[in-house]
């Protein structure tokens, strides 16, 4: 199994290298922009998977961290000189804010049943949305505002490479995190909370750490998102943003970090393609319905998602093979 993991690890690195070459050989701005969006949403979806897939807590307000990142970057770059230093500073400030917010929200609600966290994160995210609409002096309300980004980032292919590299780094960092002893405790909480508690783990403590890590990662994705659009408005705080992450994670595969990345690719492509179709056929303007139905069916019949199902299928095949070998040995012996 370990060897298999090693092989898939290497193939992932090869894919990443191939993606890195794309901007040098293929000159299409719209493809580059689409791929950049995919990388950013992959980071966002991976952060969501830390909560949903590894710790087993459902958050409906993950957009709030995404939005915090987007607005911090937007506001700082608009008010200050658009230099790389300010951009990095804005990412750090955003992460600090989202750590504080996720700590407070987690402390209040994570000691209760999972329903409360889902409900309260939803309410908190709507609070942030209302705040971003009302605090006009800072956010220009519903219309949002544009801002300039550091000169290095203006080149689309540089920005593409930065997003790709960040995604790969975060993928390996989060993978390292989920395989660490701490990650095992999180999985134990997901599987059986009472048992983890009675083994002496402070469940609340671990859940809060998971939500902080997820919040900080989502915040980084938000900063990149704002920088990629050079524009930010209240839509980053809406339910739709959370739903995107939810869809990507569920369809790609919960509890596997690769799943959200694949899910992000699929959903963003479908997004792009369906909005293209909507220009011709008005029915496709309501493409969210299709996503909603696919999502419901996925939760019902396909709860492991694409990557999870493939893994399960592989494991099943291996098991069958092992049983067969054992059986043959028995006959021979």
């Amino acid at each position: 199994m370990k060897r298999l993991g090693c092989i898939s690890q290497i193939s992932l690195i090869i894919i990443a290298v191939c993606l890195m070459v794309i901007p040098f050989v293929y000159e299409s701005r719209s493809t580059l922009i689409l791929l950049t969006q995919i990388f950013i949403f992959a980071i966002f979806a991976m952060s969501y998977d830390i909560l949903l897939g590894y710790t087993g807590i459902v958050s409906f307000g993950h957009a709030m961290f995404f939005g915090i990142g987007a607005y911090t970057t937007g506001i700082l770059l608009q008010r200050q000189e658009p230099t790389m230093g300010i951009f990095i500073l804005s990412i750090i400030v955003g992460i600090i804010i989202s750590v504080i917010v996720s700590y407070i929200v987690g402390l209040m609600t994570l000691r209760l049943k999972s329903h409360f966290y889902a409900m309260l994160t939803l309410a908190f995210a709507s609070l942030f949305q209302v705040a971003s609409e009302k605090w006009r002096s800072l956010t220009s309300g519903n219309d949002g505002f544009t801002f300039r980004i550091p000169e290095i980032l203006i080149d689309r292919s540089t920005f593409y490479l930065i997003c790709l590299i960040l995604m790969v780094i975060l993928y390996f960092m989060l993978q390292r995190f989920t395989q660490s002893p701490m990650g095992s405790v999180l999985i134990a909480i997901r599987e059986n909370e009472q048992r983890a508690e009675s083994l002496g783990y402070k469940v609340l403590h671990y859940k809060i750490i998971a939500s902080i890590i997820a919040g900080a990662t989502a915040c980084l994705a938000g900063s990149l998102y704002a920088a990629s659009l050079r524009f930010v408005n209240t839509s980053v705080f809406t339910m739709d943003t959370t739903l995107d992450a939810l869809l990507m994670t569920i369809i790609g595969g919960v509890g596997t970090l690769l799943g959200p990345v694949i899910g992000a690719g699929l959903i963003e492509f479908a997004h792009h393609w369906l909005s293209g179709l909507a220009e011709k056929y008005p029915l496709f303007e309501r493409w969210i319905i299709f996503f909603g139905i696919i999502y419901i069916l996925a939760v019902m019949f396909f709860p492991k998602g694409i990557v999870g199902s493939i893994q399960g299928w592989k494991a099943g095949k291996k098991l069958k093979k092992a049983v067969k070998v054992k059986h043959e040995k028995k006959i021979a012996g």
Partner: protein
Amino acid sequence: MELMLNLIINGLATGMLVFLLAAGLTLIFGLMDVLNFAHGGFFAWGAFSAVWLYSLSGSFFVAIIGAIATGIMLGIFTEKIIIKPVYGNHIQQILITLGFMLVLTEFIKVVWGPNQMAAKTPEFLTGSWELGNVILIKYRVFIIIIALIVYSMVQIALKKTKIGLIVRAGVMDKEMVQALGINIKKVFMFVFIVGSAMAALGGALIAPYSGVVYAEMGMEYAILAFIVVVIGGMGSFSGSLFAAILVGLSGSFMAYFIPDLSLAVNMLLMAIVLIFRPQGLFISRG
């Protein structure tokens, strides 16, 4: 004084509407541990079908009956198709009901178009009464009266009838009720339908009150209903009435004095309740 009274009536009317939404939510949760995120969808569907039927038939009574019928049908469909397959799995329930909420909201836009619809107040409820120098807007009083009638009907049904007894016992300890040979899933289905009918009624009543209906209103009011359910205590019917009035009043007073902070105040109320009494104000067990 006059201002205060108007604000109170206003707050009570909003609170009552939220109560109609929250009551179903809290009973469904108390009985089966199902938190239905699609509940706001029933509310929006009730509102749209009432406005549509009212513009077709011109009779407010038909509109309300139609909205309730819509709520009942949606309730049966949701319980059978969406919730039944995932009983007992909390995470799946939360995820699937949210997905269904999304579909319900989008489907409104397919049926009635993406724009908001204007809602008219029926003639016999427009205008206001003047008592001395106090002006009472008729429609707001009407909402309060209807909601109080619904509250007392459900309360009587819970206290006096056999099925109410089973529901109350089920909220307390559903394993015990099942062990006594009662099929609690059937009772649950009944409660679910009553809850969705109440949500649709709330939607039908809010349409003339706010003047317009739009597809996203379901989610907005559902968030208020969640706050109410948390404050009142999950599973407490009277608690949800009290908490809804509290939320409605604080909302209307804040909307008058500091309009930007009205949602924030409700959130603050909820945060205080969560810190000091996480099980809610009206639940004695932990």
